């Protein structure tokens, strides 16, 4: 009897334990919420976000010309553009048999800054050249140089001027800019742009860069530019991409060839249509150098534009022997022209000390 009661007690105990534990488990499961939350995603996170690249194909074509031409690239004014940056243009010129030379100043080199007139060196070089490329010069051209280059262009020589916007930092450093010795050009106005040279041809490079917040090549500074009309420079070109371009202002005799519409200028924030390339006769100015670099020369229709520029450089018919040796203010005749000076030399026969280069 006692054994039966014991077994019955154990049974009741086990049953109660199972009931209590089971009820707790069921209640807990029912009452506990899920720790998972509804998945969330940004309303703007969709496939439309993915930026697509601008077409980058095609090649820069070699120019055609009956005769070998000589293209001189100025490197004597602290030009802030590397040979690599011009490589696509220079490569096709070399490939088509033309002579590409870099003019880096008078060969007399160090220590001659005050004793030789570099202007005669540049003009002498231009005498045997057919085309001249000026890109981002840090120092200003002397009057003698400008006269020589103008004579060169008037005689059928092709002049290509390229410049980027002047960054605030570089303009701020202009006073202490160390100039390459021997270039002789000490007037460091607006480094980065051939201001006084371009002005001779009725062209002015602007300040600031162009940008477009809405329609651009994946960056607000990479703006599209279109031909303004029919010009050999824009044959076949529908749309160019220029990065960090500066606008050109021109007089009536200069024709804008390429312009950007509905873009803004960083310095004024004003929207408008800005010329990026302008041409007057044998002189072309482009407010950008980056489009010539290997990474940009084939973007959009840039390769056609670069091809046309190459063709422009070798298609001239320049008189030989210009600029003539008797170009004004070359320092011949015993007086020494202070390098970089736009003012006439002193007439008392004394040598003006040169201190522009900081040597």
């Amino acid at each position, binding site marked *: 009897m006692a054994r039966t009661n014991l077994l019955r007690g154990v049974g009741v105990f086990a049953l109660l334990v199972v009931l209590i534990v089971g009820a707790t488990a069921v209640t807990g499961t029912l009452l506990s919420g899920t720790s998972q939350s509804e998945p969330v995603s940004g309303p703007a996170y969709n496939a439309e976000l993915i930026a697509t690249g601008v077409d*980058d194909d095609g090649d820069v074509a070699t120019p055609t010309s009956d005769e070998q031409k000589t293209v001189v690239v100025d490197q004597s004014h602290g030009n*802030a553009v590397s040979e690599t940056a011009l490589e696509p243009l220079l490569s096709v010129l070399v490939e088509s048999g033309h002579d590409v030379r870099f003019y880096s100043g008078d060969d007399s080199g160090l220590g001659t800054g005050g004793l030789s007139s570099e202007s005669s060196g540049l003009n002498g070089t231009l005498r045997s050249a057919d085309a001249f490329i000026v890109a981002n010069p840090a120092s200003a051209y002397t009057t003698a140089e400008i006269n020589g280059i103008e004579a060169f262009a008037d005689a059928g020589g092709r002049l290509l001027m390229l410049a980027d916007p002047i960054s605030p*930092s*570089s303009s701020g*450093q202009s006073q202490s*800019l*160390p100039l390459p010795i021997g270039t002789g050009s000490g007037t460091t106005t607006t480094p980065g742009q051939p201001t006084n040279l371009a002005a001779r041809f009725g062209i002015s490079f602007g300040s600031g860069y162009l940008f477009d917040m809405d329609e651009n090549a994946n960056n*607000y500074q990479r703006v599209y530019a279109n031909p303004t009309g029919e010009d050999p420079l824009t044959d076949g070109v529908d749309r160019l991409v220029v990065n960090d371009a500066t606008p050109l202002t021109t007089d009536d005799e200069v024709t804008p060839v390429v312009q950007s519409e509905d873009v803004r200028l960083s310095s004024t924030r004003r929207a408008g249509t800005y010329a990026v390339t302008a041409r007057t006769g044998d002189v072309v100015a482009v407010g950008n150098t980056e489009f010539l670099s290997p990474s940009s020369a084939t973007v959009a229709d840039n390769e056609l534009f670069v091809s046309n520029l190459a063709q422009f450089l070798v298609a001239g018919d320049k008189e030989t022997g210009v600029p003539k040796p008797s170009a004004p203010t070359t320092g011949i005749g015993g007086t020494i022209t202070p390098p970089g000076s736009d003012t006439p030399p002193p007439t008392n026969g004394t040598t003006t000390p040169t201190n522009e280069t900081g040597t």
Partner: protein
Amino acid sequence: MTGGSPGLLDRLRNPVVLLGILGLVVGVALVPVVWDVSTEPDGTVAVVEMHGTITGDTATKAMDDLREARHNDSIEAVTLDVNSGGGLASVSEQLYLAVKQTSQEMPVTVAVTGTAASGGYYMSVPADAIYVSPASTVGSVGVRAVVPSSATADNQITTGPDKALGATETEVRQRVETLRRAFVNTVVAERGDHLALSASELSYAKIYSGTRGVELGLADDIGGLDAAIDAAADRAEISDFRTVRMESPSPDALGQLGLSTEETIDDQVTVSSTQYLMVYGRLNALSAATETEVKTNGTN
């Protein structure tokens, strides 16, 4: 004696009296419990800090805090105390998603206690209301990439041209543009009709004062942290609440880590990688590209 009044024991035998006493005892015993229940706040508003640069460490703490707020039944609403000029782009997006997740489950308000710029603003936009003070700043909706020097050292052999930098310049630009679209479109979508700026105007990445931010719809109201907390409680419909502050990691400990693009592997080797940042302000000495610019200018 038998005719006298009943004694105490006799009275206790009366079930009415006995139960009355028992009820008194139980009632008194329950007073503290009932008092606690009746005076307990209706809920808690969690104040989650996001102070300093948004890095993996600071954001992880904030995201953990937000997750805790979502899972803790006593927390009814969240107020974000934001004072950050942004940081890493990917982490800023993670924070944005965490705040959005939280705002779907409970009221979330933001108090801009200094700056909510770039990534700091990104994380704030899903909130139900953004409170600013006149001197606090909001905006800087933009992205940037810091690309280390492209030159591969002579003593390195890589298996591909993009092993060092991970992408070409064009690809980096494309990615930055994609991130910009995500950021700008998110702000436009989250702020909705409040926003008086177009996507294109937002893309200028301007920074605005608190008052101007309210005018432009980047923020909702002028008010401090307490206003934001009260607003969160109101939205959660709790009049009696307490607050719990969940702090950011000490800025001193993380200040040095910042947004360094360089990671030290050992004494001999450090690794620089392309960083995509949503941060307000000018970066100094982080970018190899900047160094290149300096060099170019110097040789002009």
